């Protein structure tokens, strides 16, 4: 199956899903490391996206 391209919205949704799992205590220790590495990837991606958009908007202003 082709991997779906990451978008800001999909990344935020995934962050929310991880948040919900963690909050419900549904994440085992074995998964935790993997999840937190994923959080880093998603968070970096979203930060970069927002920075890019801000650069465009600042250019418009």
């Amino acid at each position, binding site marked *: 199956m082709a991997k779906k391209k990451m978008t800001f919205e999909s990344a*935020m949704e995934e*962050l929310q899903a991880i948040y919900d799992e963690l909050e419900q*205590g549904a994440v085992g220790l074995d998964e*935790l490391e993997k999840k937190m590495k994923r*959080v880093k990837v998603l*968070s970096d991606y*979203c930060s970069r996206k927002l920075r890019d958009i801000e650069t465009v*908007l600042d250019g418009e202003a």
Partner: protein
Amino acid sequence: MARMGAVLWAGEHARLRKKHKDSLETVLMESNQVRLLVNVDFHERFGLKLMIKDIDLSYTIGQFAERRLQIIKKLESEDLLEVNGSLDLPVALQRIAIISSETAAGLADFRAHIEENEYGYDYRMHLFPAAMQGAQLVPEIMTQLSIIKKRKSEFDVVVIIRGGGSKIDLSDFDHYELGKMIATFPLPVFTGIGHEIDESVVDMVSAKSFKTPTAVADYLVRHNLETEQQILMLESESLQLAQKIVRDRRQELENYQRFLPILAATTLERASNALQQILFSVKMLFAQAINHKERELAHLMALIQTAKPENILKKGYSITYKNGHPIKTSGEIKVGDVVETHVQTGIFESQVSKIKK
């Protein structure tokens, strides 16, 4: 009805023309009713004649006003007064079809006003010449409107303009067919036909009417300025909205960035606590097992202690050995054997004299 001819001699005409200006020609048109001041003149050869000395303009104006009201009433009953005005104006008004007389005062003003607008907007103007007064006004304007109608995709708006004129001149624009044509015209029609007080029928059915051609030009520029301002405002508002969206999403992201590690740490701590709990339980179980074994050992040791020979001797028992081996049955000895008996305080030897089975 009696009929009688009336003569306006050139000299009198020139005098009246000076007095009444252009209004004279407007009033002295076919089908108009006029009130005249005349001299009755009789000539032997030409007979009875009326010599026109003056004309009462207000009488004819009254007639015009009456006709105008009837036209308005008719157009109103046909719901035609608001039709052209209800057309949507294009976002930018740039392609202008001008109906005017090439010589009309006001046309040059209009063009200059448009071309020299202070915002530098571009306009394309095309003149469709038509008489702006007199008998040719209505047919010529209607002809030009028909031509423009066929080319309607080339224009955003039609303007009908002329310079100032008298109130009587304005009555040329009070015409039912022309009014109807403008009312149902597919493009918005603006008028600037130079009057201060009254509106002509053409003004009433047009999308917008202005007092002067310059006022029409002002409006065309202002409309585009407003459009541009709206675009700029939309741009600025869009930018602000976009910035707010980014701000909100950043806040959302920062919440994840802040709380996810805390939740992860909680998960880690919970796992660690569970591990500690298991280790503690295992230790407790080990301790219990060791304790149990220790008690068993102590018990055994106590038993062993009790069974030690010196402890047996202490209780008054003795042990008899033959050749260093304790004698457990009478079968191990025979009469005459020397045996060694251990008691608590010492050892003595004895010889077996008799064995009882």
